[in-house]
């Protein structure tokens, strides 16, 4: 009886682990989409309203991800403080600080950190060119992440359930 109960717990736990991993991968993909939307929103608001980035990030731009909202406010505050020489430096340093919390890998972090050049240029045209480049790179990362997500979900799901079953067999 005890073995049966133990087996059920182990199988349930392994399914749980597989679900958690799946959820994390989906969350990560959602974050990348949210970051993409953030870039587009800032650019659109900047081109439409012609307001400085500190106003846009401080007052108007909101995302569904609370971490990104905090990050935007932090950038706005740092821009208002005017302690770094360029806006890109501010953008890069704040994203570098939030990188761990956002769980971005090296490649993703590099793309996002360099995307600041799309908002602090001398003209709208310059910003547009940088933005299209940043979006292109981000789209490629999203595609890669989607491909990986499908593969990883299968692998992690299978491995964790098999491990659970192995333990059950060992126990029995």
């Amino acid at each position: 009886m005890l073995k049966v109960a133990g087996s059920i717990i182990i199988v349930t736990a392994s399914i749980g682990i597989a679900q958690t991993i799946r959820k994390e991968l989906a969350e990560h993909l959602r974050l990348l989409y949210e970051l993409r939307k953030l870039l587009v929103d800032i650019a659109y608001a900047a081109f439409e309203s012609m307001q400085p980035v500190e106003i846009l990030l401080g007052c108007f731009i909101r995302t569904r991800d609370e971490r990104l909202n905090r990050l935007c406010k932090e950038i706005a505050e740092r821009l208002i403080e005017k302690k770094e020489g360029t806006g890109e430096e501010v953008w890069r340093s704040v994203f570098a600080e939030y990188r761990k919390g956002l769980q971005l890998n090296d490649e993703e972090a590099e793309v996002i950190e360099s995307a600041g050049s799309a908002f602090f240029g001398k003209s709208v045209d310059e910003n547009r060119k940088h933005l299209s480049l940043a979006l292109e790179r981000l789209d490629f990362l999203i595609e890669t992440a989607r491909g990986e997500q499908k593969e990883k979900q299968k692998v992690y799901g299978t491995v964790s359930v098999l491990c659970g079953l192995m333990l059950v067999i060992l126990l029995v």
Partner: protein
Amino acid sequence: MASKEFRIEQSFSVEKSSPVDKIFQWERIFQWERIFPLHIRESLCMDEYLQDLEEIRIRVGQPMEFIHSTGSTYLKDGLYRVTVQDVAEMVNYISNYSLYAYKEELKQGYITLEGGHRVGMAGGAVMEGGQLVGISPVTFLNIRVAHEKKGCACGLLPYICREEGIYNTLFFSEPGAGKTTLLRDCIRLLSDGAYDGAGMKVCVVDERSEIAACHIGVPQNDLGIRTDVLCGCAKPAGIQMLLRAMSPQVLAVDELGSEADFVAVEQAVYSGCRVLGTIHAGDIAELREKPCLSEWIKRGVFQRYIGIRREKDGTRRYQIFDAQMECLC
């Protein structure tokens, strides 16, 4: 049945507000030293630089000059020379890291800061099709510190106001004598009803943002409680729009110059609206010579002309003329 009394209690929590929370607060005090590079900011705390400050001149390769009402001082006694990097960094700060947002202002050669301070820029002109579209690189800056002289127009109100409203009035002087300052105070006083207690609806077309010194659409100067401002718009189009949309009793415009300005003002005058304006002219004789004005003078479109002269000691003297150019005082 006894009525129940409901007591509404409000609780106020005192929180430390972040810089972002203050973006749209009118009271936000602009820390103008923030437009300077970090290594210069500390030096700027000295009273020697800030006392009676009127302008700060920044020129690449030259010492930073602080112009006071009594003379000039130089940063670190003139030992420090401004570098190209310093100016580039300042331009970043002045434009809030967003030069694209100030494209139109840059075409005019200036950016207005919070608090109404104005930064004039010069350097390499960028031309497109014979038109100036920007300045790059910026190598010269002139920061004009805003001074609101509240109450400077009090003595003029009896000459401007009449039983029903005001006379159409034109302020004239040479550049830098204080036309805009005087116009601004007139607007404030009329809007607040300082003369007879009945305030008037005043609309301002602030093409170069010199009257209200709008920053993100919010006037940085006090223009009174009944004043509406349209900033960054050409005067003819702005006057038309305000006449249609805001039903002004008084319309104020700065620096009338082009023929289109005069046509628009005339339309406003004949639409039942009173006009306050300014124009560049050294004296009344110069004013008479202005081609667009001579016709107006004949027809008595404006009933008051107020000349401003700056004396050597910085005080202002005013001369008031009526519609026939007769000196009233």
